[in-house]
């Protein structure tokens, strides 16, 4: 049993964490509805005029669709790579399996600015800069560990004999993969893919190095706007961002069930 004083301490910590996590979001949402001309919190009156401004701003809208496209490319690249790597790392005994695992964590341990410059040099040498797809590929590369973790934790929950059972039922290797292993790790694939989508949507630092005026993604566009003048329309754009992430989480809940995503089993 938890005593009364323990209960107070635990709930106190929970509330502090909740407030600290949600405060920036709440401030931005509040500020976006201001009827004044500068970003303030609490907002100065209520109006939707900044959303109206955002919807009319052609540059922001174009950047938003570019970001959607980048996130789509990133997800399409990361899904097959991350799924295969995640399954391989958790279901098969690999030679140098540990080395591969560490290697796949490299994008995390190297500072993003370092990977960004590296990617810029590579894509620059190929003459690929100025397109959107290098940004999508770059996002896939730097965030790959997320989908690998998601898939391999899903795969690690499966019965170690699952593939043998499929073989026993008469399924060959290819059939086993497509009819048994892949569907069984699908919750991890969906979770990881949505995560990749959101991360690519929000990615800033590496994109900053790879974009030019024609390929400006939304976070970079916002950053550039801030440098000139801070107006509430940026808060409104941020709220659009938050809405996209919330939509992704809602989709995750529908497809996989959040309890599977949050619980280990």
């Amino acid at each position, binding site marked *: 049993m938890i005593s009364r004083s323990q209960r107070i301490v635990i709930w106190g910590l929970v509330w502090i964490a909740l407030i600290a996590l949600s405060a920036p979001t709440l401030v931005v949402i509040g500020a976006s509805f201001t009827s004044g001309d500068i970003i303030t919190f609490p907002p100065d009156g209520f109006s939707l005029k900044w959303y109206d401004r955002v919807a009319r701003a052609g540059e922001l809208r174009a950047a938003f669709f570019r970001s959607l496209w980048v996130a789509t490319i990133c997800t399409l690249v990361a899904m097959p790579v991350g799924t295969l790597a995640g399954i391989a790392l958790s279901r098969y005994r690999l030679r140098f399996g540990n080395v591969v695992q560490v290697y796949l964590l490299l994008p995390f341990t190297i500072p993003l600015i370092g990977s960004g410059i590296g990617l810029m040099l590579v894509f620059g040498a190929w003459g690929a800069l100025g397109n959107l797809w290098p940004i999508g590929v770059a996002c896939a590369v730097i965030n790959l560990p997320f989908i690998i973790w998601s898939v391999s934790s899903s795969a690690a929950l499966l*019965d170690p004999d*699952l593939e*043998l*059972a499929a073989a*026993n*039922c008469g399924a060959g290797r290819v059939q086993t993969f497509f009819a048994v292993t892949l569907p069984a790790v699908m919750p991890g694939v969906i979770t990881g893919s949505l995560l990749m989508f959101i991360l690519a949507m929000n990615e800033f630092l590496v994109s900053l190095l790879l974009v030019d005026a024609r390929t400006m993604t939304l976070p970079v566009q916002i950053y550039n706007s801030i440098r000139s003048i801070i107006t509430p329309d940026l808060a409104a754009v941020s709220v659009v961002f938050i809405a996209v992430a919330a939509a992704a989480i809602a989709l995750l809940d529908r497809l996989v069930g959040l309890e599977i995503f949050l619980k280990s089993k």
Partner: protein
Amino acid sequence: MSTAEAVRTDTASTATTAVSVDGVDMDFGTGTLAVRDASFTLETGRFLTILGPSGSGKTTLLRLIAGFQTPTRGEIRIHGQRISAKPPHKRSIGMVFQRLALFPHMTAAENVAFPLKMRRHDPATTPDKVDAYLRLVRLDGLGDRRIHELSGGQQQRVAIARALVFEPDLLLLDEPLAALDRKLREEMQLEFRRIQKELGVTTINVTHDQREALVVSDEIIVMDHGEIQQAARPSEMYRNPANAFVANFIGVTSFLDGRFDGGALDVGGVSCAGTPVSKLDPGSPARGAIRAEQVRLGAPGTTLEACDTQLDGVVDDVIFEGERLVYVVTVPALGDAALRIYHHDPAAQDLYGAGAAVRVGWTEADLRIFKKTGEPA
């Protein structure tokens, strides 16, 4: 192992031999062989249990028979055909796995239909077959449930139906009951037996549960340290264990260490009537084994009827097991050897308490004398 030499076979083994294992070694490179020189044959339609403690090599042997691994040495044939001749998915073997390995993303019926789909059975007959096998395992009406919506016992039944639906030549059970609680385990043991009798499918079961082995099997093989210790029918195995390990592993047995004096077991100068099982030289170290139900118990000073050896003892402990009592009696004349003795007690009375003096005895046939090997009892 006795049957093995008789069938040291040619390719044209008789139609009734379902499985033949011949001189199989398995070396995982750990220093000791996981399976050493295993040989046995199994006739079509029989239920064999491979019994042994964990690490005895029983699961390895089963996986070799399933063809998941290739033996280092020796041959395994199923209906005369070498198991290694076909890849796993082309073999006609159904298997129930230790953790069941049901497909989590499919319903119960989809799990059962899967082997039919993969083995390209006529799709038109699939629903009927799935229904028939779900009925066989008494899951009619639950086919639409997802696997995680079923209870442990129901999942067992799905796994059995999935292993049997394509009418395999051989059914393998890899300790699937180990995780169940006792009541459910005993229920499923009887289910296995019923289904096996109903279909007549040749079955090999692996377990460490001696009771399960005795209850479900036509034949038992006891393994220890990778070697087959004895192969026999359950009653034969129980009554005539081939060595001290088997005697200890099946049933409740007490041991007396001494020397073989040419006719009986000499324990510190006291002659204990017994029957030698293995070939023993007079004077060699020997170990006597006696079942808890074979030791007679009486009041001190009385003469126990028909007992060839009678000694005085002291009750050390009385264990209440519900349907019976177990007396632990130490016998000073035998160097304080402890004998475990069953007492069935229909009158519901404790005859003796701890510390009571008693008389114990047995007949010559009851005490079995084995060659003493290095291992502890």
